[in-house]
């Protein structure tokens, strides 16, 4: 089976408003943030949050959507313990916005629609979902504003989905409507020209890629066995598998009616213009500007444009440091180290000065780039004075040929087999020698000089 995968995403984005979508309780995680409205108590009525509407329009404009003229809320009716009223206030017709686009490299991702809705409560199970005798419903999340974004089924790989979501998050952060405290939940529809399978409840971008890759393999396997069916599956992040949730024969019946407690809200042209004017620079525009202003490589410009805080660091140091060095160091060494430690660039914003000092030393040939990399890996978890570190750790660049030659000789002597290999044409071995010397000198050796010495030593060694 070699059919291409066809994937569509439904993304639920918690947005960062002060209060919930229909009441004045504080939004986000905090104690006691419930009231009769978000608990669905009898007699309590919803009042729409204007800020949430403004935020959703910001996103719609950033994604080049067509905006509706009116905001109408609906009741989506189904029974579930996490839904205080046993209906969810959401939007149906018209959605807040439709027909948007977002470019991922050369591919255009089409956005079918986006709309506002309230988040249900969260449910936790004392054990596995199927074996638990009870569950705990936590209403602090109940009523948090969500934007639901639905794409056309236009992705053909899990990686593409990841790139789209990364860019989407970058845009959300740019628009200042989302931060680390907000949660992104994704449902993915995956099919290989066969029945469509919906995977629910994927909690992060990395997991989306994993879940879809898993599902593609599972579907190929089940298709071979002739057992593939239309169903809804649940992503289990512990076992890293999708598990059956329910079989889906027909569309669900939600018995939508207009929410009678909320008046129709007109979206005026003036309001849209005002939001348009206040829109910040978006990733694509930013990448273009970075290339023009700093003459850096497009691939670095793209990475920086997608990471708001990393770019902050870049723009703060690029006036003092060669922009190309700064960009390449941030996008490779720093980004790599952050990724390894599972940290966001926001966590190291206060270390901008240290990074600048490091790169100045690299630029002036006082330390090697390798040394800078090693120091930055430490700097990410803890702030310290880099100058002091360099001197106490003896990391200043060593270009004393005699001193280096001694170390090189030792290395060559101890690795006779490697010397043979090099002579027999395995040129990669050279890197091994240089690397060993670098490690032995705590990355202070001038790598160019080491290379020269090693080559000479190998040349001169007896056959």
């Amino acid at each position: 089976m070699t059919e291409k995968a066809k994937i569509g995403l439904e993304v639920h984005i918690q947005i960062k408003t002060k209060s919930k979508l229909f009441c004045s309780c504080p939004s986000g995680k905090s104690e006691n943030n419930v009231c009769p409205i978000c608990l669905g108590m009898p007699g309590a009525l919803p009042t729409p949050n204007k800020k949430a509407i403004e935020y959703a329009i910001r996103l719609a404009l950033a994604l080049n959507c067509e905006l509706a003229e009116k905001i109408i809320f609906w009741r989506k009716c189904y029974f579930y313990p996490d839904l205080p009223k046993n209906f969810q206030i959401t939007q149906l017709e018209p959605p807040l916005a439709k027909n948007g686009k977002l470019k991922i490299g050369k591919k255009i991702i089409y956005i079918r629609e986006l709309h506002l809705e309230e988040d249900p409560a969260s449910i936790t199970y004392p054990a596995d979902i199927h074996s638990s005798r009870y569950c705990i419903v936590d209403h602090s999340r109940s009523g948090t504003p969500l934007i639901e974004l639905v794409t056309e089924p236009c992705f053909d790989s899990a990686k593409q989905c990841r790139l789209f979501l990364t860019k989407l998050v970058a845009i959300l952060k740019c628009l200042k409507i989302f931060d680390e405290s907000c949660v992104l939940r994704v449902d993915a529809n995956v099919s290989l020209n066969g029945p469509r399978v919906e995977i629910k409840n994927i909690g992060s971008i990395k997991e989306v890629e994993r879940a879809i890759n898993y599902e593609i393999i599972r579907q190929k396997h089940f298709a071979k066995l002739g057992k593939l069916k239309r169903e809804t599956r649940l992503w289990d992040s512990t076992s890293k598998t999708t598990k059956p949730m329910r079989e889906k024969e027909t569309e669900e019946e939600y018995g939508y009616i207009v929410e009678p407690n909320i008046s129709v809200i007109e979206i005026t042209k003036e309001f849209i213009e005002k939001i348009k004017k206040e829109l910040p620079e978006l990733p694509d525009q930013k990448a273009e500007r970075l290339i023009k202003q700093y003459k850096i490589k497009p691939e670095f410009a793209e990475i920086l444009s997608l990471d708001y805080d990393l770019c902050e660091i870049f723009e703060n140091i690029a006036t003092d440091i060669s922009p190309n060095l700064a960009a390449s160091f941030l996008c490779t060494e720093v980004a790599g180290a952050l990724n390894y430690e599972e940290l966001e660039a926001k966590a190291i914003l206060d270390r901008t000065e240290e990074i600048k000092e490091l790169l100045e030393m690299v630029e002036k040939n006082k330390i090697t780039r390798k040394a800078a990399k090693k120091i930055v890996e430490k700097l990410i978890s803890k702030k310290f004075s880099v100058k002091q570190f360099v001197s106490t750790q003896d990391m200043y660049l060593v270009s004393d040929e005699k001193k280096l030659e001694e170390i090189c000789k030792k290395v060559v002597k101890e690795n006779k087999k490697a010397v043979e290999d090099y002579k027999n044409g395995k040129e990669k071995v050279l890197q091994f020698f240089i690397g060993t010397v670098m490690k032995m000198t705590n990355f202070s050796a001038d790598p160019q000089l080491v290379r020269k010495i090693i080559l000479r030593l190998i040349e001169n060694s007896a056959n």
Partner: protein
Amino acid sequence: MKVLEFLQKVKQNEINIEDYLSEIVQKVRKINDEYHYFNSIVENPKPEHKGKLFGLPVSVKDLIITKGIETTASSDILKGFIPKYDATVVERLKNAGAVIIGKTVCDAFGFGSFNLNIGKSFQPPLNPIDKKHVTGGSSGGAGGITQKADFTHVAIATSTGGSIECPSAFCGVYGFCPTYGLVSRYGLISYADSLDKIGIIAKYIEDIKPVLKIIAGHDEKDNTSLSQQVKTKEVECLKVGIVTQALEIVNEEIRKAVEGCIKKIEKHAEIVEVSLQKAMKYGVATYYIIATAEASTNLARYCGLRFGRNEKIESKHFREYFAEIRGKYFSEEEKRRILLGTFVRMAGFKQRYYVKATKIRKLVIEEYKQAFNKADIILTPTMAIFPPKIDEVEKMDIIDIYNSDLLTIPPNLAGVPHITIPVQTNKKFPTSIMLCSNHLTDYWLIDIATKIDKWIK
């Protein structure tokens, strides 16, 4: 004693509020033992604030949320629910110094015209004129106590399709239902949100305005609450619109009584014929579709989890538990309206019923606008029948019961203010005329109705 006179006496210390209120509680208990107008009576009622209504005893229909006082909607499923907050109207009344004396019985969630659709934990209210007969519904307790009370008192009631008008007519008192959105619904347990209104039942027509002035007005907690001001109207010669069709369908005695009123009014005003053909023909169907559609979603929250009845849930799937609780504690009528309302909004039927009904409601509103081009107010009988006996209702067909709202549904669908005035007949029971006027002319309507009330006496 009328409200304004009472308030004056309290102000001048001619009435000792503490004594007066404890005396009232005694009386209310006694009436309640015999007639069942209250689901709960407040132990030691006293004013919490100084204000324009200082000391005024008020009963509140049990469909309105009262902080610390059990609020049940007269449904078994909410039995035991003690809210932690006040409805906006209750808050406003308390802030003005009014005193809540108790919660009046009603049809469960307002579902009914005779106040017999109540949970097993409640007793049906009996007509104050003859106990074998119904009070009318859904605000039966409010209508009954207003008639029976020999003390100053005003009842806060609600109407969705006639729940203020019907018991007012059957109990021989005044009922007022405001423009939709004039009085905040925050804290009114939803039956059908797009139709629900809070209004007033009173023994004297003069008692309505002082209370309305306190409870009316914009509330930011109710998104459909109006921010526009109530209009006054200058009329040289009052034009009273009559709907001939409405007079043709009512009981003979009622028709005679209403025609008698029209004759008396004719001496002071011009009588014109207006047409409410669509409202009369499609009103009942339109109303029951919209109202049950909304009600079936509003009642979904009653599932034994967060408030009201709950039972041991462990080891049960939630669907099983919800079905058990809802099956056990909802009455037949609650179940009927949930099923009907769910059906009319299901895919495949929604266009034919729910969507069509919302379109017809717009036409009905348009029809009223047309009628108000011809007449300043529209006069019809309130109810087509006299209050039936309780055992007669039990034999009635459900469609006939729904059709008994035929005359009260149109102004409720259109959201226009309306007021009912009791009219004496040759029979044991009085009947009632209903006057309605254009949106947001509420105070003007009350003033005109006060005049008309004098003309027809």
